[in-house]
């Protein structure tokens, strides 16, 4: 079945089509969806054992059956095997057969934990499919859980009965992201004191944030059903407010930005896993860790390494670049080439300033013939030998190398073959 057909079916809340689209998103396919906000995306976070699934179950079963409800529940993947034990459905299974409810377990798949780009894609698919409510149950551990605030219109933070110290610890992470705080209602005396501590804290946060929505603190028991109706009422009120104030589209924007960020993390992780050679070179001390990372990011295609500029007075040139705000290295004398060199650092390339040491050097002759200006362009490649053989195949003459220098292995392509450009090839070692 093609993706268009699946999208068509998903629009009609065909759960099998939705499921297949989400699997495709997990596998890296990116469906182009035109999303109009209609779903209330509700993130539920809180430490393991705080009763997240139970609360979602209690809410979902009370939502009228003419509303479409989607539940995404996230379990951690093993960093060693990639597998995942997904047990969050257990509490919700009774809802599985309701036509209006769709439940999907998703693994974190990756070293970062928390949300991944496929979760965000799944939210897009579910909103496209017409969900009225999308509940996202986070793993409940770690900083990455705070990502949920970028995709959710409303964040519920579940707080188990805690001591004062524990509340302080929680404050740093979860206290900034919640729109509704929930203390599990029980006869445990710690539950009452946690409730009071939270109330005080929320008042403080409220003043600092100065937002229209005032965070709410509620006592709810998902297990025994206490306070769930009230919670749902508050959730709906908040949604209406978001619709009215036009703020619903804000989270669509942050959702898109997050998806990009999460996809980047994922790509980076995959690249890292394949970059065993770089890792080895860092271990062996051939590259510093940071150099290796820069090399990793540029992997795959030839990239600009530096542009060399021939100058008569390098100190003056260096001063000018420094005045412009560039980071400029101390001059270094390279006897072999008869030049004094200063490096001007750019984002991920450099400008190399060259001043001839004697009138016999090639750079001096260059200035004599053509005046000051761009002397050569250097391109970094992953495999210089391969590149040279390609260059020779197309009839370009390779001069001066490949030879090993301080920066790595280098070679040049003669400017007469390349429209007057002297092209240096570098492979950093």
């Amino acid at each position, binding site marked *: 079945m093609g993706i268009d057909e699946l999208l068509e079916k998903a629009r009609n809340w065909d759960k*099998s089509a939705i499921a297949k689209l989400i699997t495709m998103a997990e596998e890296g396919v990116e469906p182009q969806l035109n999303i109009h906000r209609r779903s209330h995306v509700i993130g539920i976070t809180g430490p393991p054992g705080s009763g997240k699934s139970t609360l979602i179950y209690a809410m979902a079963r009370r939502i009228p059956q003419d509303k479409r409800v989607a539940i995404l529940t996230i379990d951690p993947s093993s960093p060693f095997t990639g*597998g995942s034990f997904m047990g969050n459905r257990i509490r919700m299974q009774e809802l599985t057969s309701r036509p209006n409810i769709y439940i999907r377990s998703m693994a974190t798949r990756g070293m970062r934990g928390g949300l991944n780009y496929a979760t965000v894609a799944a939210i897009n698919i579910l909103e496209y499919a017409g969900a009225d409510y999308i509940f996202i149950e986070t793993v409940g551990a770690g900083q990455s859980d705070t990502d949920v605030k970028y995709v959710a219109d409303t964040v519920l933070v579940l707080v188990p009965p805690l001591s004062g110290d524990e509340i302080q610890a929680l404050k740093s992470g979860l206290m900034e992201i919640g729109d509704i705080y929930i203390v599990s209602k029980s006869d445990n005396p710690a539950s009452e004191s946690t409730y009071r501590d939270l109330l005080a804290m929320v008042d403080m946060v409220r003043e600092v944030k100065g937002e229209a929505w005032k965070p709410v603190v509620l006592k709810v028991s998902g297990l025994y059903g206490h306070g769930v109706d009230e919670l749902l009422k508050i959730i709906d009120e908040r949604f209406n407010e978001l619709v009215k104030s036009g703020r619903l589209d804000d989270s669509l924007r942050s959702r898109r930005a997050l998806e990009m960020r999460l996809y980047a993390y994922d790509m980076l992780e995959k690249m890292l896993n394949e970059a065993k050679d770089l890792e080895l070179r860092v271990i062996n001390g051939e590259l510093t860790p940071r150099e290796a990372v820069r090399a990793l990011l540029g992997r795959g295609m030839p990239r600009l390494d530096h542009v060399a500029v021939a100058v008569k007075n390098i100190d003056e040139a260096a001063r000018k670049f420094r005045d412009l705000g560039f980071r400029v290295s101390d001059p270094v004398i390279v006897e072999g080439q008869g030049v004094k060199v200063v490096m001007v650092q750019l984002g991920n390339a450099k400008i190399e300033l060259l001043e001839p040491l004697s009138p016999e050097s090639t750079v001096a002759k260059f200035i004599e013939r053509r005046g000051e200006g761009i002397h050569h362009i250097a391109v970094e490649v992953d495999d210089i030998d391969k590149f040279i053989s390609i260059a020779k195949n197309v009839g370009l003459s390779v001069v001066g190398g490949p030879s090993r220098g301080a920066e790595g292995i280098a070679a040049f392509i003669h400017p007469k073959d390349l429209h007057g450009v002297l092209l240096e090839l570098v492979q950093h070692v």
Partner: protein
Amino acid sequence: MNEMPKPKVIIAKLGLDGHDRGAKVIARALAEAGFEVVYTGIRQTPSQVVETAIQEDAKLIGISILSGSHLELVGELMRIMKERGLNIPVIVGGIIPPEDREALLKMGVAGVYGPGTPLKEIIEVVKKLTGVS
């Protein structure tokens, strides 16, 4: 480390029986073998299990029954799967008398595993049935 995630599989307890030791051990072993394993918990009806497999886009269903109701319940499961157009392998574990084993296989069950089956064997079977090399 960091192999591609393996297909998603469902491990379910069908019927009213509460013996979940085996189901949990198998689910955990499959997760440690790299599968994404959705464990439904106890007291599942055949239609709940089918619905779960559809919503999760699962590639295999593993059923555990120790109450002796396997013929009725698995029969019903296979019927609903057919009706819903769900065509993925089903394996069954539990206390299954030898002659019922044949009956289950005839219904289209891909494998029946009794007490004492090594975890290794089950992992291999699941790998084979889900196309993991």
